[in-house]
């Protein structure tokens, strides 16, 4: 933990840049899947009344669990394709809508930050250029990392674009049911993804610490 904090505080702008870069990667993936889903570029964006939603979540009378659920599911922005007037599809009909909620945005940001930390620690290992006695941990850190990223990606895709995942899997020849499974168990996949990336960060931090010690030695 100390090493992670030290790394981030030593290079805060790099941490921020990496986080934003990973976040942009996720955004691009979601956009690409949505566009593939629609078969064309989205042409309609709707920004929700987020401030009003947050104020209501705290000021309207409701149970604690309802309040949590309302906050988590607060939509932030959505985009999709809106049919124009005059075609065979009725004017204003929307298709392929993707909605970003507060919990998904938080999840994506957290994942992005963790991946950024992982990458920074990995870079630190490379700078030290030695694995030494921490070879086993290194394998965990180096091997687990990509798995963590993939799991996090799968989980994020599941909770962000399950139907889009179905399309992608169909195109790849995998049963569309796989996408449905991702959607149904998106919270589980999210937890697994988060756990894997945390383990990867921890393992990589240990390797980085060992590498730094070896380098100094």
């Amino acid at each position, binding site marked *: 933990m100390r090493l992670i904090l030290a790394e981030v505080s030593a290079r805060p702008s790099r941490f921020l840049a990496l986080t934003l870069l990973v976040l942009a990667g996720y955004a691009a993936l979601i956009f690409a899947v949505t566009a593939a889903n629609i078969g064309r570029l989205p042409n309609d964006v709707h920004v929700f009344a987020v401030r009003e939603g947050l104020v209501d979540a705290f000021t309207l009378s409701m149970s604690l669990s309802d309040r949590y659920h309302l906050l988590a599911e607060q939509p932030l922005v959505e985009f999709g394709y809106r049919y124009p007037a005059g075609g065979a599809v009725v004017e*204003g009909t929307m298709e392929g809508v993707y909605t970003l909620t507060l919990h998904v945005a938080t999840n994506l940001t957290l994942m992005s930050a963790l991946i950024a930390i992982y990458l920074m620690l990995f870079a630190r290992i490379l700078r030290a250029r030695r694995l030494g006695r921490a070879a086993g941990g290194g394998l965990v850190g180096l091997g687990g990392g990509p798995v963590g990223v993939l799991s996090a990606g799968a989980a994020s895709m599941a909770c962000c674009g399950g139907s889009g995942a179905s399309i992608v899997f169909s195109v790849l020849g995998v049963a569309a049911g796989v996408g449905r499974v991702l959607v149904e168990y998106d919270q589980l996949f999210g937890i697994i993804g988060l756990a894997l990336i945390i383990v990867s960060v921890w393992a990589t931090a240990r390797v980085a610490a060992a590498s730094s010690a070896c380098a100094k030695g």
Partner: protein
Amino acid sequence: MSMSHESRRTFLKGVGVTALAAIGDGIGPAVVRGQGGSPIVIGCQADLTGTFASWYYWIEKAARAAVERVNREGGIQGRQVKYVVEDSESNPATGTRKMRRLIQREGADFVVGSVHSGVNLSSIPVAKELQTPYFCIAMAAEITAERGNRWTFRVGSHVRSQVQASYQFAVDRIAKKWTVVVTDFAWGWSHRDWFKKEIEAHGGKVLDAIAIPVGTKDFVPFLSRIPGDTEGIYWVMPGGDTLGYILQLHELGYRGKKLSPICAVEAIDVEKVADQLEGAWMIEYLPRREKYRDTAFQRDFRKAVGADPEGREIGNPSRVIAGSHYWAAWESVNLIKKGIEASKWKSRKDHPAFIEALEGIQVKEGPDFPQGDLVVRAEDHQGFHTHWMSQVTKGKVEVKFEVPVKQVMYPVPVDFRKQKA
């Protein structure tokens, strides 16, 4: 200076009136509220933006027009109706929040709901929690079954009604061997399951059930699975997906029989895909074209909402009505009026009596109920009404015959009367 007797009386009277006025905000309105001149508040949980905006455009117009008409005719029991609208943004979380706003902030005594099943289903527990009758417009079967409660009502058709209205004609007159093609989500599965069950129980056979992911553009891999001995396709698909499906089905050379609920083409201008839909059968819950329900009530209703006889917006013919859905909002408002009158409702404490008054209510076709005679079943609060079997001929949806109310009724799935109101 001492007061005369008369002066003292006048003074005391003035003090009394002032005192009553001073405590008016606390006690007075609580006494006056719900009686006499204070308005009855009807809230509308409207999908004004987002996915369902094109449908709710018509539904909100119908609800608003119904309230305006009620007020023009003197209100309900001498009280005007205050109509308040909140935008659900076609989103379940927002819709639930707006349901609370309507009731807790706007003081809605009754709420006409969204057409989005997800919004309805997540708002149903709120209706019970806040003890406010909730009139759903969406079509998920669970709304008036396992996910509903004594505070929820539904005037209009839904999956089970639609299958009930059509299966006998389907197996007797359209085809014996069916393939079901649906979009791979709850609405599609519901139709698949109920249609298969009824067809196979009454002499037909479902050869295959194909579920296609939402948003699919290339239907060929799925449509090529349709068994060669299929005589009829029962299909259920939403919005723009329908267009791709019917175009590609036609391109593949399928010219056999087709049947769907009208919802599948509610977002489609049928005239623009006349060739592809030629001969297709549809179950309607109110004919899109006025000529098939040409009554003074229908004409007045359409005029009030701004729909022409062919089911297009007056002044904007590119906009097609959500013909099988919008009438439910008009009738929901009038059902509220009926329930208030029948139960002598004065305030929210009379909600139990209001609910009891609606359980089993039967209303006749008229200006309030232009769709036709309506029965609200006591047990599950589901409305039953006439349906129509129609067929597309040269780009027009032509009604072939009516399906009477009794034929649409299915066995009771739940009894809400066991719950306390």
